[in-house]
Structure formats: structure tokens, C-alpha cells
């Protein structure tokens, strides 16, 4: 349910205002990045400098925040300094629930503070506070410090990477949950905004339109989560339990996407790490899956790296030590770096160095050097300054072509389109760039079906039908960005329909969920077109289109064919 209030915080003018949006915006755009994209288009942020004070950050919860299972995520949105287009990234932890229960659906942050600042929020409003003492500190140090200063609070903080405008700097929330992608941490840094702390001030209690039916829908969904293999795997071993299976399918990128077999997946997977170092389960507030884990290694506690991190710093860089990956993950999170973009960018540096196309002084397999480079990147020192720009700009600067593993400037994540063909069109057309979330096409290729919308794969190494099912899945999956619900929840359209209807009272049938998702997807597309990041960027780099051995069986997706079908299905012009 909605609190009906949004904060507007101007860091330049040092004022805070309470906005009460019209009911219509909630009804039409639901919440999360649905409402955010509407607000951004109204504010014309697409025409702004991403590092300029006029680039607004819109942070939104959704109607189910704090009410339904695994709806504890919050969306951070802004024009991306990495992609120069639509930027969004969500993260779990406690922030979303603390914000909603304090009576706020979200916030719009504009301007730029003259000095380092942080924002403190409770039910009375927000206060802009000095953060000189926090500037230069890691994310973990900042979170720790603010929890001391503000008492029981949820904190979202940037590290040195965000302060130094590393284009893929992330925001870390509470217990190591990351809003990783599209450089939202760098936008915070450009505003001299170190952190947001929301006090545990539970004065707002969401009232459901039909509490009894809502709880019935919650129980049904909880039952489905309990029966889900994927959810159970994440619960027991985290997302990294998939590493060995990924290698079997050829989905695990190896040596900067140039090889298909790592052969050491079992040394970097979370199955390996959990067996040796598991200490306790961890995760987001109100989530029964709890995919986060805390490890004890070398006498210290660490967070278990996610699948994406195990692959982006492991197989992609030929690092075969799970223990090194624990340390690398901790360091990257401390510094506030997106582990996907950072791993891929370092992989590109290793590749260019090996091929004598440039000399970044780093070789595949060198874990110690990677740790050193993380610090250099976060502080933009030596080679780190160029690597802080991401793969697209490195390629442009060196006058190369097809080597940078990105789409629209966002580095390709750790699911290989040669293993699951629909990822080709999904990456090429995804609004925030190459991204595996929330469309989940790799899961569709592994057997996930959405019967209501006719989403079913014809085979993971087939091109036929992939344009259509990807477009359909993108439309459906926008609902997860709006709610904001974790995509690990195996919710069917009918579940979401019931939850929305019985909480808000709005009539959201499965058909309406789909059509609203399509509208929101198209609005983000429009945002990209207005930013100059539209159709001409619907393409994959050559580096992921060469045949490799292993689970991909040497096959390569036909991107052109998939795109043609995709455009036809969406009714867009089909010219390339």
C-alpha cells in the first residue's frame, strides 16, 4: 500500500519538501522504477549531464514494500554516467521497509551539496547533515559510523569509488546488499552525497484493501517459494550454487568471454565456500529465501560472494581460488564498485595486455594484482583512472572495435548468450544495457514457463521464437521493478495480480500487469531514445559472438534474426 508522500530534497538549496503525488500516478505506474521513469521524463533528466546537479536521483519503494514476501527492495534511478541513458539499480536490505514504514514512498534528490553530506530521514521528514568525517571512508565504515550516530537505522552508502566518480560505482546497503549497476554510486558522488540513513520509525502501517484475501495470496506465494528448487538452492548455498551448472551449460564466461571451459568451477563456487566456511544465513528484511550468507574465513567474517561476482572475478579472469574471491568481493564492496562491470573491465585489460593491444600491466589469473587494481580504480590512480571509465570508453579511447563486452555501455553479466540464445536479444534490447535482470531469460531457457503469456523456450540453442518470448518476458518482468519484488520469487502473474488487487484495491488483472509492464518498458526505451541511446545501440559485441567449446556446443546466436522477430513482435520498424 502507498504512504502517499514523497520527499523532495534539494542539496544545493538545502531544503526539503513533502510532495503528495496524485493518485493517478500510483494507479498508472504502480511504483518502483515505473513511477521513477514517469518522474524522470517529466523532469527531462535525459537531457541533463549525469554528473550535473540537475540530474535528479529518484529512489522509490513499491506498493507491496514491507507487506508481501521478498518485497524489501528499493529502486535507485538517475541518468547513468556509465551508459548515458536510463539508469536503474535496486537492492534489498532494510532501507525500503524503513522508508515506507516512516511514511514515505520514495524521494527525489536534486542539486549538489557544497560539502560532503548525508541525508537522515524519519517520519517527520529529512535533514541534510554534514558528512566531512565520512568522506574517504569505505562503505562498511560509513554504514557502521552512521548506525552509531543515528541509532537503529538502515543505511545506503557509497565508498571511495563513488566519491571519485568511477562510472560503475555502486551503493551498498546495510548487510552488503548492492545497488550495483549503471553507476548510481557515482551520481551520489557527483552530488557530494555520501549516504542516506533512515531511522526505524515505524509510524506508518500499510492498510490493505482486503486484508483477509491479501494474506491468503501471501500464503499461496510463500508455498510456491517453499516448493521452488531455485529458491531452495539460493536459501541453502546462495546464488553461487549455480556455478558448476553454469559451466555445464556453457553459461559461465571464461577468460574474458574467449573460452568455453574453465575446468575449475568447483573451486570457486559457493558450494565449495559454504562447505568450508559457512557461519550463518543472511539476507533482506522480510525475505524467507535469505540468499545472503556470512562466512568465517581466516578468523574474520565475510559476505558470501554472489554468482555474478564469483564468475566476473573468477572464471572470467582465470582466478581459481574461492578464498581469493571472498577477499576480492569484500574489497570491491568496501570501495563501492559494481563487481560485474569492474570484473569485466579488468578482464578487458587482461585481454588487451595479453594480445599486445595495450599494456595495463595485469595478466589473467593474478588475484593479488586484481586486489591492487581495485584500489587504483576506486581512487582513479595510474591504470585505475582509465579502467574507472568502463569498457566502452576504453575501447573508444584505444580506437578498437568489438572487444569491449558491453551493450549501451553496461558490461555484460555472467550469463553467456552462446549458452542461452535468447540472452542475445535480451541484452541487445534491455533498457539499462546488457543485464540479466529482471527478464530472467536464462531461467526461461532452463525451463521456466509463464503460461499466462505464452512464454516458453523452444530450446536453449535455438533462435526461433526468441525475439517474441524475450519481449513478452521483458513486459511481464517490469512488474518486479515496480513492486519492487525480488526476481528470485517464483511469482506467477496471478499471484501478483492478487497481491496488488487486495493491497491497493486497484484492479490489476494479469492482462493489465502485462500491458502496464509493456508501457513502462516502452517509456524507458523512450528515455533512451531521447538520450541518444536508442535503437542504434541494440547490438552485441563480437567478443561474445565467437564460437567456444564446452556446453555451448560451439554454437552462436543469430542476433540479427532474433532482433528482427523482436521488432516485428513489438511493432517497431524492422530496419537495422
Amino acid at each position: 500500500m502507498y504512504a502517499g508522500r514523497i520527499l523532495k530534497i534539494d542539496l544545493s538549496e538545502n531544503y526539503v519538501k513533502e510532495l503528495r503525488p496524485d493518485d493517478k500516478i500510483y494507479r498508472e505506474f504502480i511504483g518502483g522504477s515505473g513511477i521513477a521513469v514517469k518522474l524522470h521524463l517529466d523532469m527531462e533528466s535525459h537531457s541533463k549531464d549525469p554528473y550535473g546537479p540537475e540530474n535528479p536521483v529518484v529512489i522509490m519503494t513499491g506498493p507491496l514494500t514491507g507487506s508481501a514476501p521478498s518485497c524489501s527492495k528499493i529502486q535507485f534511478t538517475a541518468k547513468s554516467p556509465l551508459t548515458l541513458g536510463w539508469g536503474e539499480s535496486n537492492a534489498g536490505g532494510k532501507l525500503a521497509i524503513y522508508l515506507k514504514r516512516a511514511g514515505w514512498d520514495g524521494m527525489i534528490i536534486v542539486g549538489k551539496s557544497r560539502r560532503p553530506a548525508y541525508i537522515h530521514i524519519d517520519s517527520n521528514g529529512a535533514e541534510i547533515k554534514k558528512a566531512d568525517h565520512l568522506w574517504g571512508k569505505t562503505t562498511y565504515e560509513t554504514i557502521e559510523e552512521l548506525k552509531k550516530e543515528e541509532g537503529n537505522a538502515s543505511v545506503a552508502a557509497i565508498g571511495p569509488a563513488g566519491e571519485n566518480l568511477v562510472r560503475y560505482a555502486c551503493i551498498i546497503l546495510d548487510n552488503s546488499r548492492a545497488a550495483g549497476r549503471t553507476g548510481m554510486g557515482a551520481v551520489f558522488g557527483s552530488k557530494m552525497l555520501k549516504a542516506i540513513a533512515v531511522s526505524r520509525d515505524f509510524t506508518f502501517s500499510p492498510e490493505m484493501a482486503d486484508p483477509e484475501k491479501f494474506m491468503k495470496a501471501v500464503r499461496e506465494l510463500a508455498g510456491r517459494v517453499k516448493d521452488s528448487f531455485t529458491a531452495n538452492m539460493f536459501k541453502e548455498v546462495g546464488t553461487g550454487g549455480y556455478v558448476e551448472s553454469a559451466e555445464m551449460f556453457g553459461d559461465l564466461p571464461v577468460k574474458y568471454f574467449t573460452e568455453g571451459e574453465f575446468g575449475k568451477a568447483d573451486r570457486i563456487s559457493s558450494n565449495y565456500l559454504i562447505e568450508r566456511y559457512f557461519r550463518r544465513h543472511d539476507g533482506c528484511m522480510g525475505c524467507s529465501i535469505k540468499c545472503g550468507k556470512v562466512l568465517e574465513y581466516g578468523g574474520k567474517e565475510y559476505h558470501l560472494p554472489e554468482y555474478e561476482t564469483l564468475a566476473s572475478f573468477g572464471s572470467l579472469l582465470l582466478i581459481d581460488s574461492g578464498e581469493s574471491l571472498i577477499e576480492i568481493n569484500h574489497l570491491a564492496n568496501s570501495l563501492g564498485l559494481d563487481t560485474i562491470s569492474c570484473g569485466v573491465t579488468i578482464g578487458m585489460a587482461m585481454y588487451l595486455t595479453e594480445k599486445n593491444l595495450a599494456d595495463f600491466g595485469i595478466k589473467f589469473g593474478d588475484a593479488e594484482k586484481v586486489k591492487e587494481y581495485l584500489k587504483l580504480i576506486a581512487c582513479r590512480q595510474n591504470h585505475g583512472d582509465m579502467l574507472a571509465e568502463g569498457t566502452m570508453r576504453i575501447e573508444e579511447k584505444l580506437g578498437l572495435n568489438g572487444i569491449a563486452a558491453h551493450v549501451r555501455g553496461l558490461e555484460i553479466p555472467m550469463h553467456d548468450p552462446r549458452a542461452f540464445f535468447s540472452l542475445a536479444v535480451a541484452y541487445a534490447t534491455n533498457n539499462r544495457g546488457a543485464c540479466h535482470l529482471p527478464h530472467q531469460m536464462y531461467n526461461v531457457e532452463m525451463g521456466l514457463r509463464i503460461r499466462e503469456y505464452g512464454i516458453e523456450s523452444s530450446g536453449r540453442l535455438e533462435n526461433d521464437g526468441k525475439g517474441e518470448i524475450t519481449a513478452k518476458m521483458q513486459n511481464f518482468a517490469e512488474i518486479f521493478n515496480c513492486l519492487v519484488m525480488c526476481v528470485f520469487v517464483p511469482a506467477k502473474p496471478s499471484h501478483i495480480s492478487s497481491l496488488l488487487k487486495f493491497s491497493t484495491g486497484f484492479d490489476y488483472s494479469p492482462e493489465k500487469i502485462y500491458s502496464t509492464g509493456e508501457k513502462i518498458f516502452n517509456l524507458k526505451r523512450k528515455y533512451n531514445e531521447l538520450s541518444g541511446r536508442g535503437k542504434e545501440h541494440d547490438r552485441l559485441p563480437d567478443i561474445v559472438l565467437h564460437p567456444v567449446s564446452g556446453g555451448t556446443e560451439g554454437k552462436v546466436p543469430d542476433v540479427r534474426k532474433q532482433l528482427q522477430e523482436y521488432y516485428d513482435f513489438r511493432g517497431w520498424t524492422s530496419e537495422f
Partner: protein
Amino acid sequence: MPELFSEEWIREYIKFLNESSEYQEAARDWEGDFLFVVEPDEELERPMYVYLDLHHGKARNGYVVNDPSEVNPAFEFRGKYSNWKKLIYGEIDPIKGLVSGKFKLKGNMAKVMRYARAAKILVEVAQKIETRFPEK
């Protein structure tokens, strides 16, 4: 032609499996026994149970189980008969079967997920047996 999950079928399966160098390599450190459960559906009247003890890349023992409470395996893998047929015909693989909810797995997830390739070979070996499928 042996019937699926009969004693004769299991004997043949163990023979093929123990001849597979690919399986021996993929499961060289594996230790753990399985109960495979075939749940009845419109094509099968009664459930079927098979016990299989897998150890260091070999099958040490295997037999038909009449009462599942008689065994205490480390892992249980179960699914409907029609899905078992799809698995053995190669229409789905074990990981896809689990992700799509066609099969359920009980046991130590951290351990079993490390052997995704071995699981795939277990099914590929079953596909080599000329199998007669029981009918209602």
C-alpha cells in the same frame, strides 16, 4: 528389453555406468546414495522406487525398493512418470528438470550442485539402455 527401473534394468544401468570413463571423471570424489522416486500419473498406477549407491565415480550397489522407509539415502530425486520419460528421452536434463519444477530434490544442496555434469552423465547413461516403459 528391460522395463524401466526393473532389477534387470538396474543391472544393465550399473554395468553401463561403471564402464563410463566420463562419469568416473565427473564423479571421482562423489560419495552419496540416492533414492529415485517415480510418482504415478495418468500413465502409471503405482509409484516406483530405486536405490542407487554411488561412490567415487562408480555405482556400488542398486536395487528396486518396495517400501521407501526401508532405506535412508542421502539424496532423494523424485518426479512424475511422464517427466521421467522426458528425462530418459533427452527432452529435459536434470538441472532444467529441477529449475522448472518437474523434479524435486532432497539432500545436501551444496554437495549435489557441485556435480551437475555428473548428473547429466547419469541421465545420458540411462538413455543408452533400450528401455520398455510400463503402461497402465
